[in-house]
C-alpha cells in the first residue's frame, strides 16, 4: 500500500515537474513573442497618421435583390413565370424584351451626408446561352416601362466595366427605380441568362 502511495507520489512529482517546465517555457514565449513583434514593427521608421471622418455616413439600400425571369423566356414573347411584369415583342426578326419591375420601389436608395459618386456594372452572362451577353446589350435598364421593342432597345445597356451613374451627386436622400429589360431574340442561342448588377457608391 505504502509502495503504491510512494509510486503515486513519484508520478505526481513527475507530473508537477513537467507542468512546471511547460509553464516556464510558455512564460518565456509569452515574454519573447511581444518583443519579437515589437522589433518587426520597429523596423518601420516612417509614420502613418489616419484621420477618419467619423461623422461622414453613407448607406445603400436595395429593395429587391433578385430579378427573376423564370425558366420560360422565349423569343416569341410567350415566356411567363418569374417576376416578369410585361413583355414587348415584335413580329419581325427581332424577339422580345422581358421587363422586370422591382417588387418594392424605389429599387435603390442612397443616403449620404457628403457629395457622393456612383457606378453601375453588370457581370457578364454566366448562364448557358452564349449569345445573350452583356457586351451585346442583352440587358438594359430604364426608369419607366417601355411600351415597344423599339423603345426598349433604345434604353441604356448595362456594361461589364463600371459606368458612371452619379458624379458629384449632392448629399441627401436619393431614390431610384430601375426596370431591367432582358432581350431574347430569334438569333439567340437557347439557354439561361445569369448576371449580377452592382450599384457601387462612395464619397
Amino acid at each position, binding site marked *: 500500500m505504502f509502495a503504491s502511495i510512494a509510486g503515486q507520489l513519484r508520478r505526481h512529482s513527475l507530473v508537477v515537474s513537467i507542468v512546471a517546465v511547460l509553464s516556464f517555457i510558455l512564460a518565456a514565449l509569452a515574454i519573447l513573442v511581444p518583443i519579437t513583434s515589437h522589433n518587426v514593427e520597429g523596423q518601420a521608421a516612417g509614420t502613418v497618421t489616419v484621420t477618419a471622418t467619423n461623422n461622414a455616413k453613407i448607406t445603400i439600400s436595395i429593395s429587391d435583390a433578385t430579378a427573376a*425571369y423564370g425558366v420560360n423566356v422565349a423569343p416569341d414573347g410567350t415566356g411567363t413565370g418569374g417576376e416578369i411584369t410585361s413583355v414587348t415583342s415584335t413580329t419581325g426578326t427581332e424577339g422580345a424584351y422581358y421587363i422586370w419591375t422591382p417588387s418594392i420601389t424605389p429599387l435603390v436608395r442612397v443616403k449620404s451626408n457628403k*457629395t457622393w459618386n456612383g457606378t453601375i456594372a453588370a457581370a457578364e452572362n454566366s448562364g448557358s446561352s452564349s449569345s445573350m451577353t452583356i457586351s451585346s446589350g442583352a440587358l438594359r435598364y430604364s426608369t419607366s416601362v417601355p411600351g415597344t421593342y423599339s423603345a426598349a432597345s433604345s434604353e441604356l445597356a448595362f456594361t461589364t466595366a463600371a459606368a458612371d451613374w452619379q458624379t458629384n451627386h*449632392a448629399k441627401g436622400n436619393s431614390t431610384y427605380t430601375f426596370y431591367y429589360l432582358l432581350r431574347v431574340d430569334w438569333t439567340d442561342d437557347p439557354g439561361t441568362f445569369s448576371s449580377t448588377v*452592382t450599384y457601387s457608391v462612395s*464619397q
Partner: protein
Amino acid sequence: MILLPKVVTRARAFFRAAVGPRKRLSFLLAVALLSVAVQGGTLLHANQVDLSVSPSLVEVSATSNGEATQDITVYNDGSDALGIEVSVTQYKRASGDYSAVEWLAVEPSRFELLPSTNSTVTVTIKTPVGLKSGGRYAMVVFRAAGPTAAGSAVGVAGELGVPFLITVDGEGPLVSQVKMGGIFPLLDTSGRIGAVAVGTNLGNIHLFCSGHVGVTDSSGTAVGDLEFTENTALLPGMTSMLFTGEDLPLTEGSSYLLKGFVDHHNTSHNASMEELNASFVVKPALRWDKLEMSIVSNRLLVTTDVFNPSDMAIFAQLRFAVADADGNILAASEAMPQTLILPGTSLNTSYPVAWQIPRGSYTGIAIAAYGGGLEVRQTVPFDVKAGMIPTVNAGWGTVPVREKAGIPAGWWIGGGIAAAVIAAGGLTIWFMSRHKGGTPPAPASQTPAAQE
C-alpha cells in the same frame, strides 16, 4: 473559472432560455455549419440589402516605410442576413503611381452579418520605402449581393466604398494647385439658370472644391447667391465641374454678372480661394454644324457636331430619326442622356444605330432639345445602297421598316428594279450634262437649322 466577456455570457443566457436542452446540440451544429459555410463556402444572399459604413471616408498622412491600422464598422440596417465580401480596389481613376491598392490589407474579408448587427474590419496601411511626395488612393469596398434564382435571373448587389486618401510626405514637395478653367452660367433643362465652374488639379495631392457664386444684374443689383455643391476628392491630374445646387429664373435678353468664389482644400492643406467672374446675356442658342448618316460595317452611324454659340453652358438632349421619301418617320430614338456643352464649344459624337433599313433614299433627322422647351433641328438626306441586317442588336432599336410599312416583298423587288432604272437614267443625264459643259448637281448638304 474562465471569465467571459459580458456579450458572451448574455448570449449564453439567451441561448439557454431560447433553446431547450434537447435542441441545443442541433442548434450548435447548425451554427457550426453556418460558420463553415461563411468562412470557406458561399456567402448568404439577401432578398434586400441595407448597408452602411462608418467611417465612410478616411484621410491618411504618411511617410515612407510606415504602418498604421484603421477600423471600419459595417452595419446591416435591414431585416435579412447579409453575406459581406470586403476587397481593396482602385479609387476613381487612380492607377499606377497614384494607386495605393497594394498598400492596404483588410481582415476579415468575408463574413456574415445578421440583421440589425454590425461588424468591424481592420484595414492595415503599410507604406513602402523611398516614396515621392504626393497622393495615393485606394478604396475598401463592402459588397452584399442578392440571391440567384432558377432559370434566367439577375442578382442585384450593393457596394459601399470607403476611400482611403493618402498624402505621402516623401521626396520632393507637396503641391496643392488647382487651375480653374472658368465659371459659366448654366442653362438647365427647366430653363432656369445656375452656374458651373471647371477646375483641373495640377498639383500632386487630392483636393476638395467648394464655394458660392453671386449673381447681379446690369445695374449691379444682387439677384441671388448660389452655393456650389462640394465635389468628391479631385485627384491629381483630373478635371472636375462644380455645379450649383440651385438656379434662378433670369430674364431672357438681359445681361448679368457672375462672381464666383471657389476654394480648394484637404485636411493636410489650408484652403486657397480663387475669384472667378463672367458676364453674360441670357440668349440661349445651339447650332448644328454637322450631321452625317453613313453606313459603316453594315450599320448606320450618326455623326453630329452641335455648337454652343451662346454665353451659357447648356444641357442638351439629342434624338434622331429616319424618314422615308414621303416624310413618314420610320424609326426614332429615345432621347439620349443629357450632355453639357460649354460656351464656344461643340458636342462631337458618333452613335452607331442598329436600325434595320432596306436600300433606298431617306432623310436623317436630328433634334437637340434644351432649356425647357427649346430645340434645334437638322436634316440630311442619305442613301442606303444595301439593306442593313445587323448581326447583333447593340445600340439602338431595330425597326422592321418593311413590315411596318406593310409593303409586300414583291414590291421591293419591283422598286429595286425601278430605282436601278432611275439611277441609270440619272447617270446618263449627268454624263450628258458634263459633255455639254454643265456641272453635276451639288452633293447632298445639310439644310440650315430649322429652328434655333
